[in-house]
């Protein structure tokens, strides 16, 4: 039982074991697709060859629209597509190992904050090399894939955070959601909700990247910059959350909540507000009460920039650079205006281009608030932070946890986080 605990060895042993197994991984990626492989060999004879695509969508199987789209893009480019799906966290390690062995996939679809890490590792080609057209993509979304003046892929779609609210709870508390425009009015609303015997707001402040993801709308909404965590604005964002906990507007459990457990609290029906993402829309329909969505308010009104989620389509470095031309066709096909609408609908994302965003709202008016939120959103690795972001994010989530649990004041926690981040990013 506990001998299976990965703790002690994981850091190195797993890497070593994986390194041994990576030869197998290379085999298995072709072995996995034996079904497609049979087709591949027949069309390979017709010319073209097989191109590998890795994505983090294991929930979409071979019969899904997503895989059908991949195959049709392959057909258009005159090649066959061999697709392998990995779990998001697994994909980064698999890609690093594959690049080490020199057998990276032709097309890689990867979570946006990882793009700068992989670019730093020299795994990805820039748009200069692979000739991808990024002109139509919204600049705030594209920024997550840029570092050192180069762009390392195209966003396939975006999602972000907003505030879900429970209409029944707000009505009972006598809160008009239209009055919630800034931090002060939101706090006032929470006070009313608590007075009415209901619970205020739930979010996730867990000690992982997820906690930073959820904290960023408030951090950025205060006007703070990631390069200076202990600015008065940054401290005010931590103080806002800490204050909510002290006054009982938010439950103490937020310190340990993942976004999923936080959603479960909201789905219980007692909470007025929940900070959560586009991906919960389907669950919101099932929650059994009327809900609405507003953007996360900035400190002094307006929409706060929330961090962007969603993947980038990128082309990893190959020894045979002649392959880039076909890979570029595949990526262009996946992200073209015509396909983007179906791709983003399939993956429940907001499209990265304004043209397609407008079409999405046309089809489903409920997406309007998300399109607004995505327009205001910001990549975590943007502002040319790149691989510095993870080194800032960790001290930040630690500081938020320290302040929320009462072990440090918001000022002290953020000052110490800034010292840690500054020494880590030197």
């Amino acid at each position, binding site marked *: *039982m*506990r*001998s*299976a*605990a*990965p*703790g*002690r*060895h*994981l*850091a*190195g*042993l*797993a*890497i*070593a*074991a994986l*390194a*041994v197994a990576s030869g197998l991984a290379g085999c298995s990626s072709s072995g996995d697709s034996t079904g497609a492989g049979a087709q591949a060999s027949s069309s390979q004879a017709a010319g073209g060859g097989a191109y590998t695509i890795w994505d983090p969508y294991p929930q979409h199987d071979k019969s899904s629209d997503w895989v059908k789209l991949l195959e049709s893009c392959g057909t258009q480019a005159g090649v066959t597509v061999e697709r392998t799906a990995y779990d998001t*966290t697994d994909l980064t*390690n698999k890609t*690093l190992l594959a*690049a*080490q062995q020199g057998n990276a996939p032709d097309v890689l679809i990867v979570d946006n*904050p*990882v793009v700068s*890490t*992989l670019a*730093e*590792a*020299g*795994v990805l080609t820039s748009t200069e090399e692979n000739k991808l057209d990024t002109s139509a993509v919204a600049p705030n979304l594209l920024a997550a894939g840029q570092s050192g003046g180069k762009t390392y892929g195209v966003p396939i779609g975006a999602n972000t955070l907003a505030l879900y609210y429970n209409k029944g709870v707000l009505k009972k508390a006598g809160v008009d959601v239209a009055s919630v425009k800034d931090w002060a009015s939101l706090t006032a609303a929470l006070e009313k909700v608590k007075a009415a015997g209901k619970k205020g707001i739930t979010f996730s402040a*867990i*000690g*992982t*990247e997820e906690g930073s993801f959820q904290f960023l709308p408030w951090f950025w909404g205060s006007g703070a910059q990631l390069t200076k965590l202990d600015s008065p604005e940054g401290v005010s964002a931590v103080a806002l959350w800490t204050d909510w906990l002290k006054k009982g507007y938010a*439950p*103490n*459990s937020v*310190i*340990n909540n993942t976004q999923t457990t936080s959603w479960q*609290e909201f789905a219980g029906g007692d909470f007025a507000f929940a900070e959560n993402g586009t991906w919960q829309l389907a669950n919101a329909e099932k929650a059994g009460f009327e809900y609405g969505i507003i953007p996360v308010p900035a400190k002094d009104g307006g929409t706060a920039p929330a961090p962007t989620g969603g993947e980038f389509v990128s082309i990893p470095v190959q020894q045979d650079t002649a392959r880039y031309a076909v890979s570029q066709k595949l990526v262009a096909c996946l992200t073209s205006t015509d396909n983007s609408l179906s791709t983003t609908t399939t993956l429940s994302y907001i499209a990265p281009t304004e043209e397609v965003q407008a079409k999405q709202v046309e089809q489903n008016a409920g997406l309007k608030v998300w399109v607004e939120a995505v327009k205001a959103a910001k990549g975590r690795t943007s502002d040319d932070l790149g*691989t510095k*972001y*993870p*080194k800032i*994010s*960790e001290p930040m989530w*630690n*500081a938020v*946890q*320290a302040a*929320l*649990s*009462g*072990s*440090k004041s918001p000022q002290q*926690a953020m000052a110490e986080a800034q010292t*840690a981040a500054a020494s880590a990013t030197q």
Partner: protein
Amino acid sequence: MNHVTQAPAPPAAARAPAAGRGRRAMARPPSRQWAAWAFLAPVVVYLAVFYAYPLYRNLDLSLRDYTVRSFVRGDAPFTGTANYAKVVADPTFGPALWHTVVFTVVSLAFQFTIGLALAMFFHRNFRLSATLRALFLVPWLLPLIVSSSTWSWMLNSDSGVVNAVLGAFGAAPVHWLTSPDWSLWSVVIANIWIGIPFNLVVLYSGLQAIDPVIYEAAELDGANGSQRFWRVTFPLLRPVSAITLLLGLVYTLKVFDIIWIMTRGGPSGSSTTFATWSYRLGFGNLLPAFGPGAAVGNLLIVMALVFGLVYIRLQRRQAF
């Protein structure tokens, strides 16, 4: 775990045939030696591939300056003990070491005491004792992710059953998992619960190996209950206790899943041990720090090794 009463006998008996085998092996013709090596090969290869090589790689990883770039290129520069220096100087090091020690010592003390008490209890073999003993094994049978998740639900500050029970008695809710003062104790409690069955089973089998005649003799000599325990049971159980504690120590040092699932080592590092820290460095961040992660992992291995050597030393002393 041989019969304690005959402890001196087996080593002597074991030594004699071993020496005899050695002499005979030398006299064997070479072809038979090849056969011997062929039989030995699978285990040697197995040990080399799955134990020696990963250990070597882990050591190598901890002595080089790995970044994502040098990981992919395989050209990480050798930096000697720089990763270890970095890890030791890290503000997380002190607290993580302390948490590891507290977690291990407190877990072991309670697991052993409760396990021994239960073993004594079940040793009486009353009716239904087999059924009850089987029930006590449940924590051992459950996958760790199930038991840890259940513990984290039970200890939830707002909706957990533990706080609900405390509330029924008028006590204020305790922030088990979200307060820096409590998070370490919460994971210790869960770990004790999970570790009891192991101690129970091993100590129970140890108890059964003690000859009832000795108890009878002690009783005839007028020893009361506590004297029988401290003068007979405890000393005769010592070898079994030692191996139980050593195995428990190795298990507990590297406990990862319970802590990671219940608290992620938080809030703000208040339940971080070397095991969770090592994982966080290597995999818990967008930007992996393989070198320092491997260094922390190696420190854990060394800690386990030291206690293993202490155990062997103690055993030798007992043997002579």
